[in-house]
């Protein structure tokens, strides 16, 4: 899970996998995904308990809905 200077640079990386092309996103989009409460709440003193609440479960479900999947997994 890395940052690149541009989409072209990501595609030229020797670890690039075309099946995960949907994972190339502007850094601002990734920053939005990583703004999910699952990340925002890490500083609370009851974080592990929180992840098991209805609110935590909903946050995780919402996060998963935004994560890119390999092309094969969608077909």
């Amino acid at each position, binding site marked *: 899970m890395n*940052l*690149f200077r541009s989409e072209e640079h990501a595609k030229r990386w020797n670890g690039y996998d075309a099946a995960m092309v949907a994972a190339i996103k502007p850094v601002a989009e990734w920053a939005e995904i990583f703004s999910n409460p699952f990340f925002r709440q890490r500083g609370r003193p009851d974080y*592990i308990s929180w992840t098991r609440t209805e609110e935590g479960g909903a946050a995780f479900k919402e996060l998963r809905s935004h994560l890119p999947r390999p092309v094969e997994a969608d077909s």
Partner: protein
Amino acid sequence: MADLELLDRGYSAIMAEVVDCGRAPHFTELAADLDIEIDAARELMHELVGMTPGWVHPGTDLLASFPPFNMQPTQYHVTIDGQSGWYAQCGLEATAMRWLVPGKTIRIEAPCLCCGESMVLEMCDEEIVSVDPEPMVGYTSAEIGGAADSRPFR
């Protein structure tokens, strides 16, 4: 398995120290901090790692990654309000560090894995302060949340 209250205290204690100084407590230090037996602290640390996208160095009890931070240096050098000493687990988790230091500016400096040229990203709370170069992207070749044994390598 540790009870939820102890899991909460353990997670919070580890995170607080990593945020404070960029290193995770050894399980012996965690034991003293939480006032529990040393073996219980060692098991607690492994349990917490199993619940989060972090890892210990293979074959050891040494915490190597506690997201969004990494104890083992990565290419993602992080400064917090101008003070250096932290590393991000990965480029994407780096964007989540700001939530642990409200009101402070996170600066992430890293070389591009394609060309080695430098990139800088600055964030503070809800704001992306600067992106250099502007077309910077994030990319992962593996599904986020994938197999635990692939975490250090994706």
